[in-house]
């Protein structure tokens, strides 16, 4: 069965520092991987996806993610964090039937 895991419930970063939100996946076959962000009291917003091609994927709001097949990881990164990046981040994998299977979420807190 397809699954993703986000090993950190919370990540704390100082504004201006680089941030990483971790995700590992377990799939049979080629993975279709996604990152979504949920701001307080809002629905999820799509950030980026990896389907095929370059391992470094660029997305919205300056975020990027690196697909690493050997480590089965798809970590979300940003070179310089903003306070406004504080939110709940979800990694997801898409199964063959089209379902998105989400990780448990990581709360990112960026302090000034």
């Amino acid at each position, binding site marked *: 069965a397809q699954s993703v895991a986000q090993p950190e419930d919370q990540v704390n970063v100082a504004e201006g520092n680089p941030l990483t939100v971790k995700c590992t996946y377990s799939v049979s076959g080629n993975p*279709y991987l*996604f990152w*979504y962000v949920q701001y307080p*009291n*809002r*629905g*999820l*917003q*799509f950030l980026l*996806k990896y*389907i095929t091609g370059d391992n470094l994927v660029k997305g919205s709001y300056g975020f990027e993610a690196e697909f690493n097949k050997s480590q089965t990881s798809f970590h979300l990164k940003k070179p310089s964090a903003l306070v406004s990046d504080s939110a*709940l981040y*979800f990694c997801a994998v*898409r199964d063959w*039937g*089209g*379902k*998105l*299977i*989400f990780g*448990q*979420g990581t709360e990112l807190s960026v302090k000034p």
Partner: protein
Amino acid sequence: DTAVSQTPKYLVTQMGNDKSIKCEQNLGHDTMYWYKQDSKKFLKIMFSYNNKELIINETVPNRFSPKSPDKAHLNLHINSLELGDSAVYFCASSQDRRSYEQYFGPGTRLTVT
């Protein structure tokens, strides 16, 4: 204009009642979804419809019944509400069932007392 909208935003009701949540998308998408987010923020798909046809039906109690009157609307009716049904319910849509990106509504916070 809101792409995916849900009503109501908040719903407080007593155990045993029947309630409905409505979802509409104005994106012209063919596929719509219902997700449930529990108190620990865990998000799981419940149903998906493609052009009014049910294509995903997860292990959900049959007290939950989705209905899609047309491809722009997907409603969720819940019978005999239980305390454990308290959650945030999100509607989403995608261009079609093969599309990678899903667009989410703002959510409906259901509280069962």
